[in-house]
């Protein structure tokens, strides 16, 4: 049975539908990503799932327990890491952990055992006396994660945990999430970054309070309709404009080159003459796979 189920969640702010009959079902030990632009409804949904906010309608169950009826039974199951750093900057690393442990009644030897295990995870042990406010971005996030994990939750919900965190710290954070998964913890994570989505078991694209699509990352990327080519060239605006005048081709600048988009049933060969006319040679063209971002933007453009 699914560990987290959200049924027909709706929430309005004034006339604005922050969430419109949103449904979600996450299996035990699954890492599930919620992906969407700023203002899509990710944080609203997460707050509702954590019971920090009441929906206008709909129902949330965690491990079969209705969160609106028996929140006291759900609370120990749930670990939540908000988007904003919300620990006490004037308390040390250790003091923050002691404080959060105390909220869940964890003290004495069981607390110390748990703390030591979390230090193994986070490598924060050598910094236990440092003020939380004086930690680097990546260390702050690891401390916040440690505090969210102190009571051994079975469901961990993280709201954009890696914004402003460097690639190495991000990778360590993801290794921790994979470790938790192997211990049976269910993870829901929101992110605007597609490379993180690729590490999840499944993901849902959310836009304007609704779900656009939901699947494994590979299947989501593969559902892109069309063909994409990388052109190794000097990507001037005028070249992009000229490429876009070719019927059935759309081009965008991508770093030091161009990306060309063709319809699914089209062939590159048919366009080689037109491309040569604007100075693009066959040798410069490499077919590439669509990535999650390509698919996400395609879906959003269809709905916009």
């Amino acid at each position: 049975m699914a560990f987290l189920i959200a049924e027909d969640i709706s929430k309005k702010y004034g006339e604005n539908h922050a969430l419109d009959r949103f449904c979600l079902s996450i299996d035990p030990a699954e890492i599930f990503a919620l992906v969407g632009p700023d203002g899509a409804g990710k944080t609203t949904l997460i707050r509702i799932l954590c019971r920090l906010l009441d929906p206008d309608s709909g129902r949330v169950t965690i491990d079969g327990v209705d969160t609106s009826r028996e929140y006291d039974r759900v609370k120990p199951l749930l670990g939540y890491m908000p988007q904003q750093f919300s620990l006490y900057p004037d308390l040390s690393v250790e003091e923050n952990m002691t404080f959060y442990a105390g909220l869940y009644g964890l003290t004495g030897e069981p607390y110390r055992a748990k703390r030591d295990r979390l230090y193994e995870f986070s490598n924060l042990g050598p910094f236990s006396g440092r003020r939380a406010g004086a930690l680097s971005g990546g260390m702050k996030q690891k401390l916040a994660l440690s505090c969210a994990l102190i009571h051994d939750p079975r469901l961990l919900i993280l709201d954009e945990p890696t914004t402003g965190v460097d690639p190495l710290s991000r990778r360590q954070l993801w290794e921790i999430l994979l470790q938790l998964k192997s211990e049976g913890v269910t993870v829901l994570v929101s992110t605007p970054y597609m490379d993180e989505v690729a590490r999840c078991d499944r993901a849902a694209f959310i836009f304007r309070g609704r779900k656009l699509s939901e699947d494994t990352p590979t299947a989501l990327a593969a559902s892109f309709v069309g063909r994409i080519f990388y052109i190794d060239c000097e990507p001037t605006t005028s070249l992009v404009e000229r490429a876009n005048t070719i019927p059935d081709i759309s081009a965008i600048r991508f770093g030091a080159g161009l990306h060309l988009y063709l319809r699914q049933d089209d062939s590159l060969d048919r366009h080689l003459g037109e491309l040569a006319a604007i100075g693009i040679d066959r040798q410069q063209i490499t077919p590439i796979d669509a990535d999650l971002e390509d698919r996400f933007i395609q879906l959003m453009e269809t709905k916009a």
Partner: protein
Amino acid sequence: MIVPAPAHTHAVETEQLSRLFGSFTAVDRVSLRVNYGEIFGFLGANGAGKTTAIRMLCGLLMPSSGSGRVAGFDVYRQSELIKRHIGYMSQKFSLYPDLTGRENLDFYGAAYGLGNTALRARIDELTERLELGQFIHQLAGKLPVGWRQRLALAAAILHRPRILFLDEPTGGVDPVFRRKFWGLLYELAESGVAIFVTTHYMDEAEYCGRLSIMHRGGIIEQGRPFELKKKHATASLEDLFVNLILSREAERA
């Protein structure tokens, strides 16, 4: 007074530039060349020395040794001139949350010494080009992240700098906004502006014309994204970045 930049070819040019804090070498003999019209990605983990390097290049911090010129001005002796010839935008710094977008731009325009008429015309031009629309009349602190970032970009280029430093400009911004933001950067680059940008996101590093990777104060790799991936035979820049740093760390151990 506008002091014209001395004759020079590179937007940024450093030779063995270093900065020590006590016995700690934050930036270690960095030699860089950034061309006008180029988008140069400056990558590195937290603590690698990126911010110290940028502070030296922006004329905010004196180097310990080595040489450097930004817009042709010397980083030791002409830091005030450097400040006037560059634009700087960071995700943390910049806008006053209690002022509207327009008031923020008025403030920065006055700080750069732009006259009223010229400033008004420039704000109108940027409002249109960055599609700021009605958002310019809202309090900066109340704007959605993506719009705040565009407004910050407008403030940074108000005085038409030929070099733009962007420190993690798109943290927390969604893919659609980021593509648009990068579209604006490409336009600026094409008009001849040198863009020096730091980011933690390797998909964004892909958008840069050239990249450098910094580790423990030094540059450990440099090149075009496509070439770097070929050279290291990795599918993603993130793998390349993490592997490079882990192998360097393993060598030290």
